């Protein structure tokens, strides 16, 4: 099994005069939890969308497990988008069945267990759930896949601290040496401890790439504190 699961080569995305991603190049190995940290508009979501085939780059490419983005990569990448993407009319058990139907690596048992732990009934319609519960359901479905790459776009945006802890615990529990999780967020203090590596992204460029512990030993401060320094307004 190859060590590099994700590679980005001179990736550029321009919207007219606006450059969202500026010749981005980096590689990610298996078995790590990576933080993609940057302020709003830095290009995090654009990068994730390109990795999922929802946007085409202007130049450059992304390769996942050596393959260009396509149906091959989509079957090994589990994506949690920034917004609510699940059909509101479906019941929870129908959503589980949906994932089962399309993803060979989906574990209905795992999903049902996690949903049960949260007291979410399978007959409930998605639209009747609270925002926090909707986020949890989306996350549970995403993490119940046995994917090789997880791309989570702002998984903790807009939820209370207890839910954030639950999300982080779910991510740690889902960890395997075979797979890599990329979390894009600007809520760094919460997420810092579960990360191996962090990538600071600003205006479509990687401005810093290091492990959390290295940053703490070298800078003598947390990644959160360093972030505030680097991205001071």
């Amino acid at each position, binding site marked *: 099994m190859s060590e590099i699961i994700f590679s980005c080569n001179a990736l550029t995305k321009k919207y007219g005069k606006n450059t969202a991603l500026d010749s981005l190049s980096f590689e990610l190995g298996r*078995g*790590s939890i990576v933080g993609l940290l940057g302020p709003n508009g830095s290009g995090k979501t654009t990068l994730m969308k390109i990795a999922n085939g929802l946007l085409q780059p202007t130049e450059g490419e992304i390769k996942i497990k050596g393959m260009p983005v396509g149906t091959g990569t989509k079957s090994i990448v589990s994506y949690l988008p920034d917004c609510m993407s699940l059909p509101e009319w479906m019941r929870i058990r129908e959503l589980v069945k949906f994932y089962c139907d399309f993803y060979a690596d989906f574990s209905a048992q795992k999903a049902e267990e996690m949903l049960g732990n949260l007291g979410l009934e399978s007959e409930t319609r998605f639209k009747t759930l609270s925002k926090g519960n909707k986020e949890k359901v989306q996350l549970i479905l995403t993490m119940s896949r046995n994917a090789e790459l997880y791309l989570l776009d702002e998984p903790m945006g807009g939820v209370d601290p207890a839910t954030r802890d639950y999300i982080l615990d779910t991510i*740690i*529990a889902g960890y395997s040496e075979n797979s890599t999780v990329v979390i894009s967020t600007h809520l760094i*203090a919460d997420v810092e401890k*579960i990360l191996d590596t962090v990538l600071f992204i600003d205006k479509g460029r990687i401005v810093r790439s290091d492990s959390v512990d290295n940053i*703490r030993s070298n800078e*003598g401060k*947390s990644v959160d504190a360093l972030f505030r320094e680097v991205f001071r307004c």
Partner: protein
Amino acid sequence: MKWNFDNNMPIYSQIIEQIKLFISSGDIGAGERLPSVRELATDAGVNPNTMQRALSELEGTGLIFSDKTRGRFVTEDAELIARARRELAQKSISGFLNYMHSLGCTKEEIFSLIKDCEGDDDNE
């Protein structure tokens, strides 16, 4: 187990300290089997790789050892545990003494302040 993390120090070294604390205080008994890396990581809220690194370093000190099939265990060596406990206490004391000296306290003042505190504790 109650984990306490400081924001500014590397996480793996804090994990090592914390586990030493748990062993020294008896939270995890001598010879006891440790939970799996994943369980410990989830409990502490840290990255499993970081936890793995910390545990490997601890194995180096002898405080924990790993049995290939049965997992990781705390040492039965009471002497080793006592020494670790002493080290942690000394580190804390030296930090305390530095602070007291920066306040300008003399050795006698320090002792009498401690006695007063103990006295208050007894009364409570």
